[in-house]
């Protein structure tokens, strides 16, 4: 019962804050709501018994991405510009609604082969075995640092002021 209540609380929080991010005029407020949305997503991960992912969600999204977004908003002084909608507001609304309806129709009409096995209580060791063990995900894990290194270099090169 507690899980049901927690799910609905998190679901309402996620959708409410996500709507706020998209609809609010003040960019800074949308960024703060985005942080709340990420926190609620971490709560959903805990409900899905993915404890390690919840911790990573808070570390990466709330800790790193949110700070980056807020810094970018401050550096570009665009709070006064706000976030107006462009001329595709209604077509975008229709496309998003159609997409949502289609996906929900597919979800409801698919017979999911749900397993009744209880999930493992801690996932960290299992994830470690998956990532580093034999027949695991070692190659993607090694490509990941390459992407991060390219990201660091790319970000530095892009932001560096060439005129000075």
């Amino acid at each position, binding site marked *: 019962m507690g899980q049901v209540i927690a799910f609905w609380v998190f679901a309402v929080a996620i959708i409410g804050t996500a709507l706020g991010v998209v609809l609010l005029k003040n960019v800074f407020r949308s960024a703060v709501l985005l942080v709340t949305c990420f926190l609620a997503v971490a709560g959903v991960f805990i409900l899905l018994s*993915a404890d390690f992912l919840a911790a990573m969600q808070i570390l990466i999204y709330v800790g790193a991405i949110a700070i980056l*977004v807020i810094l970018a908003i401050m550096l570009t002084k665009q709070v006064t510009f706000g976030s107006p909608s462009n001329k595709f*507001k209604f077509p975008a609304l229709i496309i998003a609604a159609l997409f949502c309806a289609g996906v929900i129709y597919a979800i409801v009409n698919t017979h999911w082969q749900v397993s009744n096995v209880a999930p493992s209580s801690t996932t960290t060791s299992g994830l470690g075995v998956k990532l580093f063990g034999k027949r695991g995900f070692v190659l993607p894990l090694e490509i990941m640092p390459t992407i*991060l290194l390219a990201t660091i270099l790319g970000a530095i090169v892009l932001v560096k002021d060439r005129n000075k």
Partner: protein
Amino acid sequence: MTIGLEHYLMLSAILFSIGLYGALAKHNAIVILMSIEIMLSAVNIALVAFSRFIVPTELTGQVFALFAMGVAAAETAVGLAIIISIYRNKETIDANKIDLMKW
């Protein structure tokens, strides 16, 4: 009532649609980037829900979600660097006015 796979998938679908609307309908490049982050979060919820309900003992979905998180962080860093670079050169982050590559 119990919360099943469908509930999580519907939450994910609604969240993805909100992000899709934001990415399509906004002027501000930073808001577009935030909407893309929302879409990636929705995908992560779906991946973890599949992992939890279809194969509870395998953690493959969670591994995919981890990689998606890493790529999302990289994408945000480069995206914001591009936005700041454009702001320096053009004094705007209005996505409709950034038309350097338009013929």
